[in-house]
Every structure is written in C-alpha cells, then in structure tokens.
C-alpha cells in the first residue's frame, strides 16, 4: 500500500441549531503529524468522526491522495486505510489484547477456525518493527492505560491503516508515558503514515506536530506549519483576540476568609494525580475565576470542592469541614449532572433541596410550596415557557441552565461553584446569569467560577487563578491582567 494524504474540503455539519462545522478545510500530508487544536465544542472531534465515517457531513468532500472518496461507514473508512484511536478506548475488556487486536479482521483457515498461530506471529513482528511491545495474552482490563493505548495503535497497524487519527490520546497518560507515546508517533510518521492528532494541549502540538490547524466554533481560524509556529502565536489563536465587553461593577469584598484550601491533591478516575498540592483562599464576597486549558484538573478540583471526589489536604469553609448543603453547584455538564431529563421543571427544582423544611414536612413533599417557589424562580430567572409542570427537556438549553442556576443560587449556601455557567447560552441569558452571580457574591458568599471563556472570567472575577498541569501557574488580579497574559500562563509559557 502506498502512503495516503488526506484533504477535507468545505466540510459543514449542523446539529439542530448548532453549526458544528462551517466550511472547514483541512489537510494532512503523509509522513507528517498534523494537529487539530481547539477548545471543547470547537468541532475537532466532529471533523474527525466525519473522516472516520461515524458521521456524515452536510456538505463537503474528502480526498485521499487527491481522489474524492465517499466514506459512509466505519467499515468504508477502514477499507480506505483510515484508523482511529478514540478518546475513550474501544476495547472489549474481558478479552485478551490479542483478541482485541484482531476483532473485525480475523483471518480464518479452511476449517473456519481463526489462524491463531500465524496471526500471533504477524502481530509479534509488527510489535518488533514499531517498538510497541505488549503481552498479548492478558485481558485488557488488567492492563494499565498506557498499554491499552498501545493495543489501540497496534489494532490500527494490524489493519494496515495508513491514516491514524488519535483523539486526545494523552489525556489519560502520565508524563513518562506521553514521552514514550510521542516517540512511537514520530516513528510511525517517519515510516510514511499520516498521523492526525486531536488535542487541546499546546505543549503536545509544539513538541510533535509538523503542522497545526486551529478550530474555533466550527471554523478554521488558523493553520500553521511548525517552522512558523511559536507558543505565542498559538496561544493567541487559541484564546482569541476579542474586544472586551463592558466590565460590570464589582463590589469590594471583605478581608474575611471563607474558603480555605491547603495542599489539595486530587486524582482522576484512572488514579493519576491531576491536582498537585494547591493552596488558595476565597474571601467573603469574592469571586475567584479559574482559567486553564481544559483537562488541566478543573473537573477534579471542582468535584473535590463539592465533596464528590476524594482528596488529600484540607478544605475548610469558615474554619470548619464543609458539608454539602453549604455548597451551591452549577455543573459544567447540565444534562449529565444538573437535571433529570425525565422530570418536570418543578421536580428539577426540588432536586437536592428536598430536605429543606419548606419543601418537606411530615415525610411528604409540600407540592403547593414547591409550585409557588418554582413560579417564583420562573419569574425571577425569566424561564420560558413559564410552566412549572412542563418537562424540562421541552426547554431550550439556555432555559434549562436558568432553571439549574435558579435552583442553585437561591439555595441557602455559603460557597457557590459554577462550572462553565454560560456555555452555549445566548448573550441575554449570559448577561443575566453573570448579574446573578455578582448579586450572590455581594451577599458575603464566596464564588468560584471555572470557565474556558476568558472574557467571562475577566468580567466577573476579582482574581483569576490559572490552572496548568494541576497547579496554579499564576493567581492574577483581574484588573491588572488581560487575555494575552492569561493565555501565556495557561500554556505554561510564563
């Protein structure tokens, strides 16, 4: 098989109201590593899913070595020599590494039985050539993530994939594993493979890729070759250079410490330490913004603060161990953690507040108070359509977010943690939630906002802490900083 270069021309894709991809042009030459970078929701995964046949574009064409091809399914993609390592590994856990490698491309003898011996031999020699050595007879669930990833890559090589798409491949790896992984990637590219790397980590882009395509909100905003690429240009392309919106009047906060965090360390689901001994405090009435490229420990930090993830170190509210009723939490993933889709608006309002006296008395729910309270929130937060009994899924994302915000911000809390509070909202709803957060802070509560929107952080917070690889690379006064500076800290440049 020859080496294959990829071109994607004028690719557009809509999901409902959202234009996920807008006339995107993308090229990946053979023998090179091409990176696709951008924030979550920028459309990079969608673009790659189209290349791998998992999703069909509305318009646009795909060319392999200059020839237009139709890719309607993953089997089509595999036939064209395209292989993908998904962000969440696609391994059948109870099966051995060997079995996982051959699924879907089992070669059988005349008897109908799989030719175990010759296949094993073939995979062994493949491992030797690429240096990706693994034990073939272990169940994949018993293997560490780094090895599982090797299996995924061998899977592609076994199918003789010429184009390797890797979606956030380093998210689950330790720094040592990352280095090893990159050196195998370089080897593969040198052997003529087309390697496409989806990532939002700038270090990775700079250290391995030959060229970079930057996506933002479904559009290509820049393409660079590695010679012309510096950390600064990439950082500014990623953070964007938007005109500042008006800064709201921020009330001065008191000097009294409300939240005190000392030497906090948190591990992720895979057991990798992602928050590395950070300490900070938030004062009464203060809004602390947390910036950072996604995947630098934000989720785990937020979960530890909310008391839903184990941690080492100390978290204290007003000098005492926090209990969850003190904390109001607007989660980043509304559908997963903020609401129950099958419930009505008022039932969703009750979630997590069902123990409050006014809603429950004598072992039963006081629906009359709940209805009244829901109507109050609907009015205060301008929820539309204004019916407490309608299903929450009948509301737009923005209105759902208002319901969640209404529920959380009316809670009798001392600490408010808001993750991506305005993601996907229009200007009015965004403005509204911003105002609410400022009002709540002025009630001598502490507010933490985790956001990928730097405008939002500059506008709302008193101080901005920048998370980089699980530590704060800086804690800045937001009146004395700007997006460019934050961008540099986010990428570890400063």
């Amino acid at each position: 098989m020859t080496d294959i270069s990829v071109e994607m021309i004028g690719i557009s894709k809509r999901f409902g109201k959202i234009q996920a991809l807008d006339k995107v042009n993308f090229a990946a030459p053979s023998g090179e590593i091409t990176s696709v970078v951008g924030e979550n929701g920028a459309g990079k995964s969608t673009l790659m899913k189209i290349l791998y046949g998992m999703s069909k574009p509305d318009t646009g064409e795909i060319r392999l070595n200059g020839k237009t091809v139709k890719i309607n399914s993953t089997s089509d993609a595999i036939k064209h020599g395209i292989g993908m390592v998904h962000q969440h590994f696609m391994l059948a856990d109870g099966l051995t590494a060997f079995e996982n490698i051959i699924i879907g491309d089992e070669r059988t003898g005349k008897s109908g039985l799989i030719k175990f011996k010759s296949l094993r031999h073939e995979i062994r020699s493949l491992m030797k050539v690429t240096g990706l050595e693994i034990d073939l007879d272990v169940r994949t669930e018993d293997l560490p993530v780094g090895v599982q990833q090797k299996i995924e890559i061998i899977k592609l090589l076994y199918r003789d994939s010429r184009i390797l798409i890797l979606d956030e491949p380093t998210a689950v790896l330790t720094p040592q594993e990352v280095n090893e992984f990159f050196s195998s990637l370089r080897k593969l590219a040198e052997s003529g493979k087309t390697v496409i790397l989806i990532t939002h980590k700038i270090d990775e882009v700079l250290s391995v890729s030959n060229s970079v395509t930057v996506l933002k909100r479904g559009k290509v905003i820049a393409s660079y070759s590695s010679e012309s690429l510096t950390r600064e240009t990439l950082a500014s392309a990623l953070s964007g250079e938007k005109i500042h919106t008006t800064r709201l009047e921020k009330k001065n906060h008191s000097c009294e410490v409300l939240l005190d965090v000392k030497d906090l360390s948190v591990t992720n689901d895979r057991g990798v330490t992602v928050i590395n001994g950070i300490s900070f405090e938030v004062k009464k009435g203060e809004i602390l913004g947390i910036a950072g490229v996604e995947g630098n420990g934000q989720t785990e930090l937020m979960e530890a603060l909310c008391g839903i993830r184990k941690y080492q170190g100390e978290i204290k509210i007003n000098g005492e161990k926090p209990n969850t009723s003190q904390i109001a939490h607007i989660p980043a993933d509304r559908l997963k953690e903020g609401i129950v889709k099958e419930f009505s608006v008022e039932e969703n309002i009750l979630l997590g507040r069902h123990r409050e006296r006014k809603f429950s008395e004598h072992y039963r729910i006081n629906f009359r108070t709940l209805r009244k309270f829901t109507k109050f929130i609907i009015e205060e937060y301008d929820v539309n359509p204004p019916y407490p009994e309608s299903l929450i899924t009948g509301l737009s994302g923005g209105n759902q977010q208002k319901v969640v915000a209404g529920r959380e911000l009316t809670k009798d809390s001392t600490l408010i943690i808001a993750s991506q509070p305005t993601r996907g909202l229009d200007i009015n709803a965004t403005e509204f939630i911003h105002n609410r957060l400022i009002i709540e802070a002025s009630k001598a509560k502490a507010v933490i906002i985790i956001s990928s929107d730097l405008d939002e952080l500059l506008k709302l917070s008193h101080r901005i802490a920048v998370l980089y690889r699980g530590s704060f690379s800086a804690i800045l006064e937001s009146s004395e900083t700007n997006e460019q500076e934050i961008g540099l800290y986010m990428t570890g440049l400063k």
Partner: protein
Amino acid sequence: MNEILTLAFVVQVSRMTIPYLLPSLGAVFSEKGGVINIALEGIMLSGAFAAVAVIHYTSNLFLGIIAAAFSGLLISAVHSFITIIARANQIVSGIALNILALGITKYLCKVIFGSSSNSERIPGTEVLNLGFDVFIPFSVIILFLAWIIIYKTKFGLRLRACGENPEAADSLGVNVFRIRFSGILISGLLASLGGAYLALEQHSFTDGMTAGRGYIALAAMITGKWNPLGAATACMFFGLMESFSLQFSGSEIPNQFIQMIPYVITIIVLAGFIGKARPPKADGIAFEKN
C-alpha cells in the same frame, strides 16, 4: 450405594442433564453476545409442545423435532426484535414471552387434545431402535461445538466482543445487531431442543412441564461462569441432584431439600463465594448506534 455407580445410573443422570444442558449452552450464546434471554423457560415449553403436537399428527419424530426448533427460533426472533431493535428491557421481554408461552401451549393443548393439562401419549426416541439415547451423543457434540465456536471462530470472537463492548465492535466494522441476533437465535434453537427432549422422555406434553428448567439452565450458565464447559459441569451437577431426588424420594431426606440445591448454589456463586463470576460487561444493555 453400589447401584448408584451403575451404567443405568449414568444414563439416568445424562437424561436429567440434557434438558438443562441444551438451554444452558443456548444461554451462553445469548449472553456472551450481551443479551439476557430469560425467555428460555417459555421457549423450552413451546418446543416441548410443538414436538408433541407434530408427532401426534405425523407420527414422525424428526418432523416433531424440526417443529420444536422452529418454535424456538420464532420466539427468540421476537425476543431479538424487542430487545435489539426496540431496545426494551430484556428481562421484561423474557418474562412476557414466558407467560405468553405458558398460555398459548395450554390453549393449543386444549384445542388439539381436548385437555388443557396434558396431551395424549406419543412415541419417544425408543422408536428409532438404536439401543441408546441418540440425544446423549448429540448433546456432547453440541457442547464441544459450542466451545469451539465461541473461543476459536470469527463469529465467536465477534459475539464475545459484542457482549463486552458493542461500541468497540461497532467501531471495527462489526455488525452488532446481526451478531446479537444470531446469538439469541442459537439460544432459542438449543432451548427448544431441550424442551422437545423433555417431552419425548415423558411421552407427552403436560401443562408447565418445564417446571423452571429454563431458569435453572440460566443458573447453571452463571455457575459455569458463562463458559460452555463450566455450564455443562453445573448442568451435570444439577442433573445428578435431580437423580438423587428421585432416588431418595420416600426416604428421610425431603425431596424439596434436594431440589432446592441448584438455586442455593447459584446464590452462593452470585454472592461471590466460589470464585468471581464475571458476566460479559455489556450483558443486558441495549446497544444504540449513534
């Protein structure tokens, strides 16, 4: 105790084992692919009835077994449709089909034989005049075939992949729907043959004659850790228990005590006291292609 070890006793245990073994092997195929088939009980029952009814009319043993197989395929096809295409709850579908089979067989029994409780007597495998029970070597062959298919063939590997992680199988171009469908059909086929054998042994159909054997077959599959050979071992043990319960009927050990042993063992296995029973990871979860 000497009489226990005679050839006659071995044959008796085998005969008790077969109505567990065939559906249990079927269950392995269904669940390895990720679909729980609790409808085995109803499938066995309908297999038993179909065999008896067709043999009654045609006096042909072979046609009776074909009819049983056909009924098993039909019910499992319905189960496949409900669980794979409509993605409904697999347990609920299975229970509904069991109740349906119980009712339909009863009704048809009344229509054909004039009694809802039992059929007329039909000839059994003895008419073949082979001098041995043909189902015994047949079942042994099926057992080893099942093992080879599941662990050594392309279909088996894909089946197991679908039961562990259907998304992974799908991403590699495997048609998850087709594979799971095949697994359920095989389970229906084997369970109905088990039911037919039961009816041939007893020379008639009686209302609810499977008496929970489909469930015990599932229990055997769990005890055998979703492995055909393990399931067979468990079935043999359960068959042995049943033989004992016949042997000891009338003695001081209560019959019911021996009959309950399979269930007690299943609970112990499920609770993790005898090694860890690890079901296929996606067992019981519908697959949705995005």
